């Protein structure tokens, strides 16, 4: 739209239809100059527009301006302003059309301008944005470049270090190798030297040996008082081939003995281990559930019928104490069967684990799996039962103990004492009674013996008395005077009372029997004397008749009798 500024106003009005190029600078009309001035001036545009509109065409240069306009328009492709028939006559229609066209064009241009301006703005903002981005990216690039440089630097340093370390390692390895080689070479050198020195030394020894042997040194001798006998008492034997053979035999015997012992130990160990394995196998078999998959497993084993045969054989062998055999096949068979059982057990345990885990997660499968709650209930019940049983057992044990060993428990002793106390007291009382009775019996026995003694004495005395009395009687019958002294002398022994009194007393007493046996009065005096009752009457008599030699006893006896 710079055309406005550079509008060419033809200076020459004569040549009208020559198309001019827009050499705007040459053909500047004065009005354009004016226009420029007007445009540069600070006056508002609307006013300048008016003046501008009036600046182009004035009343003087109408024709010129028309021809100029026509030229311009025709160059722009518009139809001519002039009418076709007459020259220099304005075709109003075409002018109007041209004006309309120009307006349309103007509007289009304005719109285009607006669009272009918008686009320009957009582009400007895009450009700004892009510039910003570019700046940022450039910064980032810078920083990353710097980083890269730094990392590269570090990498390089590390590589250097690595290389150094490798180098050091290599150096060390080389050194080690070198040292080892040195050691090896030194060892060989040393061995060689040693061998050489040893050979020299051996030569010296040989020489010395020769010297020593040659000298036949008398000094080398043994001086012994007498030879000692051998330990086993036998004489020494000559060394013959037989003895050599015997020695060899002995040696081999010793060796064989050692081997046999070791073999025995090993056999025993083997047997024990085999037993343990057998036991393990049996227990494993018992642990596993009854096998439904036996034929399948057999097929899986691949050995199939061979294995079954072997198992049958094994069963037979089992019956024949298979573990005493130690051949290869038996051993292999045992280990194979144990491995198989172990595998089955492992599978079984894994299955159980799976089942348990599944039960944990809540899913119940089939009848094999017991629900957890039921399981727990059962276990609780079982535990309760166990507890009860334990308590019962405890109480029973306690009772048993009480029965078996009463002396151990103090309370039981007390209890027993309680129960037996009465009995014991009764017993004690009875014992007391018994003792008393025993005492009494003893006393009575003693008294009896005493009485017997006394009785004997009394009897003797009585006999004497009787004899004397009879004598006296007899004598008195014949002569009183002769025997009176004799009788008195005799009765002096027996005390102060005279025989008459004695006998009379006796008789009188006899007539008062307390515990007299029923003696018929018709019996004679001798009989009555024999059956002298043991009563207090007699003791009185005894007191009077016998000497008072043991007063104490009698007193005691009196006392006893009076008790």
């Amino acid at each position: 739209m710079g055309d406005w500024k550079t509008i060419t106003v033809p200076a020459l009005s004569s040549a009208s239809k020559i198309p001019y190029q827009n050499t705007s600078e040459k053909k500047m009309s004065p009005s354009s100059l004016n226009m420029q001035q007007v445009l540069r001036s600070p006056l508002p545009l609307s006013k300048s527009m008016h003046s501008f509109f009036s600046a182009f065409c004035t009343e003087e240069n109408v024709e010129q301006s028309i021809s100029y306009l026509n030229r311009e328009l025709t160059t722009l492709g518009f139809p001519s302003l002039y009418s076709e028939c007459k020259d220099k006559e304005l075709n109003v229609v075409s002018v109007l059309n041209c004006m309309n066209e120009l307006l349309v064009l103007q509007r289009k241009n304005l719109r285009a301008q607006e669009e272009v301006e918008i686009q320009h703005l957009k582009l400007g903002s895009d450009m700004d944005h892009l510039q910003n981005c570019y700046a940022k990216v450039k910064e980032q690039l810078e920083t990353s470049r710097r980083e890269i440089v730094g990392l590269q630097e570090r990498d390089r340093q590390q590589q250097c270090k690595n290389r150094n370390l490798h180098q050091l390692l290599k150096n060390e390895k080389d050194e080690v190798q070198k040292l080892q080689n040195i050691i090896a070479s030194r060892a060989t050198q040393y061995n060689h030297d040693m061998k050489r020195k040893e050979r020299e030394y051996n030569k010296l020894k040989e020489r010395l040996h020769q010297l020593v042997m040659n000298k036949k040194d008398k000094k080398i001798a043994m001086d012994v008082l007498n030879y000692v006998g051998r330990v086993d008492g036998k004489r020494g034997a000559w060394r013959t081939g037989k003895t050599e053979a015997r020695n060899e035999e002995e040696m081999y015997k010793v060796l064989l003995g050692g081997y046999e012992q070791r073999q025995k130990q090993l056999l025993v160990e083997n047997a024990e281990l085999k037993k343990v394995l057998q036991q393990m196998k049996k227990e494993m078999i018992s642990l596993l559930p009854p096998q439904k998959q036996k034929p399948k497993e057999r097929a899986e084993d691949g050995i199939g019928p061979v294995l079954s045969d072997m198992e049958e054989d094994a069963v037979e062998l089992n019956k024949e104490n298979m573990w005493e055999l130690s051949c290869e096949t038996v051993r292999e068979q045992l280990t194979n069967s144990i491995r198989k059982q172990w595998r089955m057990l492992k599978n079984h345990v894994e299955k159980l684990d799976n089942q348990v885990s599944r039960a944990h997660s809540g899913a119940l499968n089939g009848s094999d799996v017991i629900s957890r709650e039921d399981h727990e209930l059962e276990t609780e019940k079982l535990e309760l039962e166990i507890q009860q049983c334990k308590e019962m057992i405890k109480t029973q044990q306690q009772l048993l103990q009480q029965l078996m060993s009463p002396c151990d428990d103090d309370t039981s002793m007390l209890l027993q004492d309680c129960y037996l106390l009465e009995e014991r007291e009764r017993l004690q009382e009875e014992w007391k009674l018994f003792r008393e009775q025993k005492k009494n019996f003893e006393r009575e026995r003693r008294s009896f013996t005493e009485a017997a003694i006394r009785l004997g004495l009394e009897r003797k005395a009585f006999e004497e008395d009787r004899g004397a009395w009879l004598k006296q009687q007899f004598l008195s019958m014949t002569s009183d005077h002769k025997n009176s002294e004799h009788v008195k002398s005799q009765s002096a022994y027996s005390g102060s009372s005279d025989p008459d009194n004695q006998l009379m007393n006796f008789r009188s007493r006899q007539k008062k029997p307390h515990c007299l046996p029923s003696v018929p009065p018709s019996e004679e005096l001798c009989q009555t004397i024999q059956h002298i009752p043991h009563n207090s009457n007699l003791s009185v008599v005894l007191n009077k008749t016998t000497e008072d030699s043991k007063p104490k006893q009698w007193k005691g006896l009196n006392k006893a009798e009076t008790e």
Partner: protein
Amino acid sequence: MNFSEVFKLSSLLCKFSPDGRYLASCVQYRLIVRDVNNLQILQLYTCLDQIQYIEWSSDSLFILCAMYKRGIVQVWSLEQPDWHCKIDEGSAGLVASCWSPDGRHILNTTEFYLRITVWSLCTKSVSYIKYPKACQHGIAFTKDGRYMALAERRDCKDFISLFVCSDWQLLRHFDTETQDLSGIEWAPNGCVLAVWDTCLEYKILLYSLDGRLLSTYSAYEWSLGIKSVAWSPSSQFLAIGSYDEKVRILNHVTWKKITEFEHPATIANPKIIVYKEMEKSPRVETESLAFPPARAQASALFSTQSKYDISQVPVSLQYIKPVADRANPRIGIGMLAFSPDNCFLATKNDNIPNAIWIWDVQKLKLFVVLEQLYAVQLFQWDPRQPRLAICTGNSKVYLWSPAGCVSVQVPMEGDFQVLSLCWHSSGDSMALLTKDNFCMCYLEREEVK
């Protein structure tokens, strides 16, 4: 525990007779035979020179006294004190002397290990064995005394000769694959002979009685190898102690290693009991001190009491790293011994000289560690029961048994530094030897609570 009085002794030569009735001790050139129970002198013999070695014959009837400087061996009889026997090696010299198992032959090793002369006390025969090996354990007798193994060296190669002791017949002669044989030992059952190489190479070979090689074992190469070897009393195990501070146990069935025992300086396993000897100075009651102080009191004041305390695990022991450029360094397992009932193995690591390690053989694990205040000089098992007697060069003797351990002060006046000990064959008593003296220690039946 009762202690007898102190008697004179020289060169730590004090030995019980095999039947356990007599005790032989040496003082310079005199040999004194005492009764074991009352220590009365039964016999006194005078030898020609200072005695360097004594040995009882197996039937306890004779004693040999070896005088290496003069090259003479004198044999004395207990039954007939007048009987005498002198064996003079003359210019051949004498380096070692020992009895044969029947008690009627004496084997003398002449100087430079030139030969071994077998002198017979029964007959006039003399036998010579050439080229014996110049090593410490070159002669080994089986436990039943039937066979003798002798290490020989000819043409820079090692050989073993097996002799029948009854008539000295050479049974077997075979070479061994060792560089430089360092020791041989029969298994207690007399069927296997262990032969081990020098410490520069770890190699142990096992030969059967008839000379066949049963097995070879080598744990590692190049480093210093075997230091000590011990058979278990049942011949089931062979314990090998080496310079790398480990004990390896071989079993008699496969002759392969079944386990390794390590001896580290720190013990961390809480199941192991560690007994540590602690000093406790005696409390002195100043009121009861008399002036001048009695001798017994004085020695008691200066002697420190000690007792065992159980240390809490983890325990770190005193580790010594010796100088590396000397030969025969004091590192590795220097002492190994099985208990007579085959239940325990006692070891000593020379890097940790104050400690004794006791291993349970049935479980093959470490059982007890005893940490002493001084370096262990010697330990020896009771011949009858699992009881270990230890001496560390001070005036105490230590006893360990599975029931516990006890430290006993030897109640002697003055210095009594126990350098060595030996048990009586019944296990009821033992002799404690110092440089110049010895005393007998009688143990009660229920000892060591």
